[in-house]
């Protein structure tokens, strides 16, 4: 395949174009991400493109007889004569030697390329766009063959990232070492010995273009600080915060240096975000340090005109010149020269301990506003090219520290950029262009910028040495003047506007563009005067004054109008969020609610002064060890003014109520668990028998299939044996052995057994045994009942429900309840000592209970209520429930006893089978035999039969609670042990009482801190109920969340318009969904436990002191704390979510609280117009 010259040119053109594109890509990445990872795909792509250029037209013979034609070989070859190449060559050899497998892939590329690929790729060449297009995103390897026929192939070999990093090893290394340009320059100048005449490198134009293209990438800093998994993704929140901390004033740490209200004021004065460059000198100086790092990059506010690293500056009081990064930034109307010592440039990788040392460097950094500069002195030493020195002289005649540029024409470039930047409002005098004497020197940065050739530079040695330029500002001063006066004007109260101020200012016409108030720092009148003289305009001062006066008045008026409008907006939208009355802050010596204050407030155990109490808590929090006493007041559990006796009584009532409620749901829990087990057994059976669903209905099939082992047989035998009452004793024991030994399935079997056993006593038909068991629980849609009595039972259950509904509605159950609950308690207490020795008795007990005694009260009640119920059926259903309750007590008894101070709790993980089959049943049944057996079972007093919907619903809730409790804060010390059970109890009780609401994820997180503080189930429960009065609205069933979001929107929009603009423009996340978890859990997941306590009590107290919506201000404070990070990284929705998720539990809670309080206060002040 012979290519014409035109083809070759075309191809070279495309090679260069692809390099250009990759350079652009890489530089963009560097600018937007502020760092480039070594393994970034854009680096790989660039290396690929460079490799393609370098290998095109490479002369094989030049490299020696046995050498490959690769560029790596070329590198080694030129290493002898080129020091840069030598250095890189050494590095490459070191790496290859250290790991032979990691041979530079570029050295083998041209050989290992399969012929197929070659063909297809040369074909693809005909599609003209193909080359560059395909190199766009994936890592691309561009290789070229040695012959004249050149083909660019897209190799698909690169599948793993680690491989990618080894591609183009030497080019990579040269890039990282910043020597690639030099090497290529060397190659270009020596092209004749290595390249064909028509190759790209040998081409007079393309060769130099290639080397100059790489100047930019060679100036970049590459990092390998992050893992390969993360290099593409955005920096971790930690890094963002740390970066910010370094760039901002260190003492203020990460907290916001400018509270929102300043933004509020600013939003009055300005419409553009240019405001942050600061009209108020104090703000500007406070954020100078921050600007240094933040603004060194191209961003929305400023255009980066020039940047050069390793520019040396000799700051005051320093002996040695320090290298640093010099940059020239163009803001809308100002030009800034910045120089930052190298020590500060790569600060965020270092440990925080070194931060202190860095403070010193901040003092050295330069931030020069070009407006303040009058003269620019340039010095060059004659003969040798040692760069140049620029000294800036301010209008006050003071010299700024000399800036020494390294060699390579950087000073000239800088001056040329400076001149460009000054336009259109200013210029260098004399202009660079008209400088005849130095024309050559200053011409080349413009005309030759694309082709930086060192040889040219070296030849410029007889140019004049020193030059002085004056910076002339054309129309600056009048704007300054106007700005100045209006600024004064606006800052003072509108009514007291000093019109006289305008007479001191400016001279010329004010017709030029609309004035922006805070774009310029305040200037001294001296300068104005000075510049005025320089311009020598002959405008009538009187006329100007009158124009100025008019304009100033009108602007002032509009400013005032805007202020009024803003205030009215604030009042309309935000006044509902805070209390109108401002509570005085704490005195300096007060520190929240301490023990002394608490005792002072508590007169004879009666807390009367609620306001003072809330005030102390709001401003200072509660001393940690007192929270247990104080929180019930905060949550409204104890009333103010209650006596200790009243509180004690209240606690007892609560405890009693809690226990009663708990016993109710425990009963249901047992049924649910049983059903669960049956279901599990069925599912397992189904699974093991290959989804054979037909057998589900028969007891035998199910039980036989239980797990598919010997155990089932045993259980089955149990059941069949139980049908013979005489063998009960033996069976029960056997069952215990089986159940205790074999876990879940055995437990299920055991339960079935005992239930059916009891049922049998009433109705000993083996077939109906299963039926009634199922119907006594819930028949989950599919009916197992084929017997006639099913209908009757259904009716019965309906009646039972009616009966039972009454006591439930009344809240406190009727007379049987108290004694019943005590008996429950006593039954719990016996758990510890109750054991195997009671087995015999207990085995018999269900029989007695169901057959004789227990039936009686139920019967009476039933007949009293409905009258028509058939005794035997009623008994059947009641007994079933009772049995389940008993089972519940076997399993839940130990947990329940935990609430009563009994610490003999069984671990949660204990297998149900063990509990059911082990010591549990004995002791519990034993308990049932106690004297109060008339109402021995709690459920019996409630009627004890539950509708299937209820069971279904509560079962589902329990299931969810269980899952979430298991996962709730298990790494927090308090929940490391059985305390998780308490959590489960409290939530289950709550859900039982609020079944309409049901359990919702997040409730666990709300109970947990209460439980940690109180370490008491019933108190936690009561307080949780109080807490939920407010919180329930946040859950999906309520409407508070949307309200929070809407309020947040208003708050941000009005108080921090800059942030709002960002949120609105950047993918619009003004829905504030990223705050969801904050509001749902009152920041519980955002903070560590101690901070949660502190935050919660402030939220509770705030309701009475400052704002019922304190959470909004907390959220706002959290946002404002990281405001600058969010803004400077212009985060979008995902960034913000990620940031705050990563920041969870690492916030400075006290700072955030303080900021939130001050935000409330500031809003109150605005509304009060103070």
């Amino acid at each position: 395949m012979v290519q014409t010259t035109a083809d070759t040119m075309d191809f070279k053109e495309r090679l260069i174009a692809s390099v250009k594109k990759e350079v652009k890509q890489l530089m963009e990445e560097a600018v937007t991400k502020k760092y480039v990872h070594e393994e970034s795909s854009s680096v790989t792509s660039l290396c690929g493109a460079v490799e393609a250029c370098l290998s095109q037209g490479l002369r094989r013979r030049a490299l020696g007889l046995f050498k490959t034609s690769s560029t790596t070989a070329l590198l080694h070859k030129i290493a002898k004569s080129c020091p840069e190449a030598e250095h890189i060559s050494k590095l490459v050899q070191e790496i290859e030697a250290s790991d032979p497998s990691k041979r530079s892939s570029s050295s083998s590329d041209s050989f290992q390329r399969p012929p197929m690929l070659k063909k297809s790729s040369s074909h693809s060449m005909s599609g003209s766009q193909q080359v560059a297009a395909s190199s766009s995103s994936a890592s691309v390897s561009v290789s070229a063959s040695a012959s004249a026929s050149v083909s660019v192939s897209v190799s698909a070999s690169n599948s793993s990232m680690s491989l990618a990093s080894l591609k183009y090893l030497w080019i990579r290394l040269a890039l990282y070492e910043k020597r690639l340009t030099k090497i290529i320059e060397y190659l270009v100048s020596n092209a004749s010995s290595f390249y064909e005449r028509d190759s790209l490198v040998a081409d007079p134009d393309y060769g130099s273009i290639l080397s100059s293209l790489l100047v930019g990438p060679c100036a970049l800093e590459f990092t390998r600080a992050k893992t390969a998994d993360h290099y593409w993704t955005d920096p971790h929140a930690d890094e963002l915060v740390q970066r910010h901390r370094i760039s901002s004033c260190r003492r203020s740490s990460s907290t916001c240096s400018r509270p929102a209200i300043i933004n509020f004021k600013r939003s009055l004065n300005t419409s553009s975000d240019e405001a942050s460059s600061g009209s108020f000198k104090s703000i500007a100086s406070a954020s100078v340090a921050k600007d240094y790092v933040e603004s060194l990059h191209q961003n929305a506010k400023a255009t980066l005109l020039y940047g050069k690293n390793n520019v040396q500056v000799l700051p005051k009081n320093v002996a040695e010149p320090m290298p640093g990064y010099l940059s020239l930034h163009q803001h809308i109307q100002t030009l800034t020269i910045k120089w930052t010592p190298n020590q500060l440039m790569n600060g965020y990788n270092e440990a925080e301990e070194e931060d202190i040392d860095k403070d010193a460097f901040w003092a050295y950094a330069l931030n020069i506003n070009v407006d303040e500069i009058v003269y620019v002195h340039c010095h060059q030493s004659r003969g040798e090219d040692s760069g140049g020195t620029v000294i800036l002289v301010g209008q006050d005649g003071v010299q700024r520290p000399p800036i020494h540029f390294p060699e390579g024409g950087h000073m000239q470039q800088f001056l040329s950029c400076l001149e460009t930047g000054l336009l259109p409002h200013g210029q260098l005098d004399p202009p660079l262009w008209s400088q005849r004497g130095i024309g050559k020197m200053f011409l080349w940065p413009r005309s030759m910028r694309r082709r930086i050739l060192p040889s040219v530079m070296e030849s410029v040695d007889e140019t004049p040495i020193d030059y002085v330029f004056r910076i002339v500002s054309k129309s600056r001063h009048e704007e300054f003047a106007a700005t100045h006066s209006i600024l004064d004007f606006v800052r003072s109260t509108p009514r007291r506007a000093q019109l006289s101020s305008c007479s001191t200012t400016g001279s010329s016409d004010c017709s030029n563009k609309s004035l922006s108030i805070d774009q310029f720092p305040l200037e001294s009148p001296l300068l104005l005067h000075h510049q005025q003289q320089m311009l020598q305009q002959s405008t009538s001062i009187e006329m100007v004054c009158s124009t100025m006066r008019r304009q100033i008045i009108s602007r002032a008026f509009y400013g005032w109008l805007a202020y009024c409008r803003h205030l009215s907006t604030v009042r309309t939208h935000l006044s509902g969020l805070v209390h109108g009355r401002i509570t005085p802050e704490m005195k300096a010596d007060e520190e929240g609610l301490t023990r002394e204050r608490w005792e002072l407030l508590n007169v004879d155990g009666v807390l009367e002064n609620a306001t003072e109490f809330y005030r102390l808590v709001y401003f200072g929090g509660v001393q940690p060890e007192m929270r247990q006493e104080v929180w019930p007041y905060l949550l409204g559990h104890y009333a103010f003014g209650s006596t200790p006796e009243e509180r004690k009584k209240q606690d007892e009532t609560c405890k009693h109520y809690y226990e009663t409620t708990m016993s109710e749901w425990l009963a249901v829990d047992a049924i649910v668990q049983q059903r669960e087990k049956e279901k599990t057994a069925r599912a397992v059976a189904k699974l093991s028998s290959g989804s054979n669903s037909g057998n589900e209905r028969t007891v035998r099939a199910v039980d036989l299939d239980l797990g598919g082992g010997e155990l089932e047989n045993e259980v089955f035998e149990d059941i069949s044996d139980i049908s013979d009452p005489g063998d009960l004793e033996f069976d029960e024991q056997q069952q215990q052995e089986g159940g205790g030994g074999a876990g879940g399935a055995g437990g299920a079997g055991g339960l079935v057994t005992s239930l059916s056993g009891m049922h049998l006593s009433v109705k000993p038909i083996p077939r109906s045994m299963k039926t009634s068991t199922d119907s006594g629980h819930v028949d989950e849609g599919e009916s197992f009942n084929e017997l006639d009595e099913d209908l009757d039972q259904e009716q019965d259950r309906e009646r039972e429900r009616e009966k039972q509904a009454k006591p439930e509605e009344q809240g406190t159950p009727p007379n049987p309840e108290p004694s019943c609950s005590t008996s429950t308690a006593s039954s719990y207490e016996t758990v510890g000592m109750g054991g195997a020795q009671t087995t015999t008795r207990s085995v018999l007990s269900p029989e007695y209970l169901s057959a004789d005694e227990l039936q009686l009260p139920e019967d009476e009640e039933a007949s009293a209520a409905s009258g028509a119920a058939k005794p035997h059926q009623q008994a059947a259903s009641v007994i079933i429930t009772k049995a389940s309750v008993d089972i519940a007590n076997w399993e839940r008894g130990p947990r329940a006893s935990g609430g009563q101070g009994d610490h003999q709790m069984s671990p949660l993980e204990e297998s149900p089978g063990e509990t059911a089959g082990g010591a549990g049943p004995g002791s519990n049944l034993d308990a049932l035999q106690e004297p109060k057996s008339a109402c021995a079972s709690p459920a019996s007093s409630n009627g004890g039969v539950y509708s299937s919907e209820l069971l279904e619903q509560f079962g589902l809730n329990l299931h969810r609670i269980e899952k979430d409790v298991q996962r709730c804060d298990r790494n927090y010390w308090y929940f490391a042990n059985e305390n998780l059970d308490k959590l489960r109890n409290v939530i289950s009780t709550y859900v039982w009482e609020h079944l309409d609401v049901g359990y919702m994820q997040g409730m666990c997180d709300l109970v947990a801190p209460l439980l940690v503080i109180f370490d008491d189930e019933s108190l936690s429960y009561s307080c949780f109920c109080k807490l939920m009065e407010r919180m329930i609205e946040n859950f999906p069933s309520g409407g508070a969340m949307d309200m929070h979001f809407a309020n947040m929107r208003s708050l941000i929009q009005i108080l921090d318009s800059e942030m709002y603009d960002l949120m609105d423009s950047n993918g619009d996340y003004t829905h504030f969904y990223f705050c969801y978890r904050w509001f749902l859990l009152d920041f519980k997941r955002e903070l560590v436990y101690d901070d949660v306590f502190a935050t919660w009590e402030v939220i509770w107290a705030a309701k009475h002191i400052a704002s019922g919506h304190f959470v909004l201000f907390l959220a706002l404070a959290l946002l404002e704390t990281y405001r600058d990070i969010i803004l400077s990284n212009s985060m979008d929705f995902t960034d913000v979510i990620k940031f705050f998720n990563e920041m969870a539990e690492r916030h400075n809670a006290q700072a955030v609280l303080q900021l939130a309080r001050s935000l409330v206060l500031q809003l109150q002040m605005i509304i009060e117009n103070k």
Partner: protein
Amino acid sequence: MASRKKSLLKVIILGDSSVGKTSLMNQYVNKRFSNQYKATIGADFCTKEVVVNDRVVTMQIWDTAGQERFQSLGVAFYRGADCCVLVYDVTAPNSFKNLDSWRDEFLIQASPRDPEHFPFVVLGNKVDLDNRQVSTRRAQQWCQSKNDIPYYETSAKEGINVELAFQTIAKNALEQEAEADVVNDFPDQIILNSQNNRPGNPDNCQC
């Protein structure tokens, strides 16, 4: 020149609570299993760089709250998804039954352009546990009935099949994205892909 295509794939993980969504995500992204995860409130996401069809793409994996009550929040998170991962727990039949509603809910909330062919992937998680209750066959049947959804049985704890599953997820998401790209530089490529992969889908569910 070809414009650089969006190289971000948005993947949503849905499924009942405690089926292991967070664990799967973290196992895939961080190669770690922890038993310390709490119930997810709101939403979180992780990103991971993957190479699919020789393209380096960033996968943004969204982990959501499992309780169906919180679905109302979904709109904000589901929007613009390229693939939806439905997870169930092989030891919890209900979590399998709910896959239907999760899928429907997603299609309603995310309202993708072509709901019929929107890529889903089903993961049956926790296969390391021995009290399995949903059979592979049943799951596969369901997947086949829903337009041949690829199905994998995974264990976030042991890291079984996680990598493989997410590779498929990334691949399918990328195809979805490619199809969504109306203007494309290589139109023939799309046709090639779609031909290749529709019949190829059943191959994906060999478990």
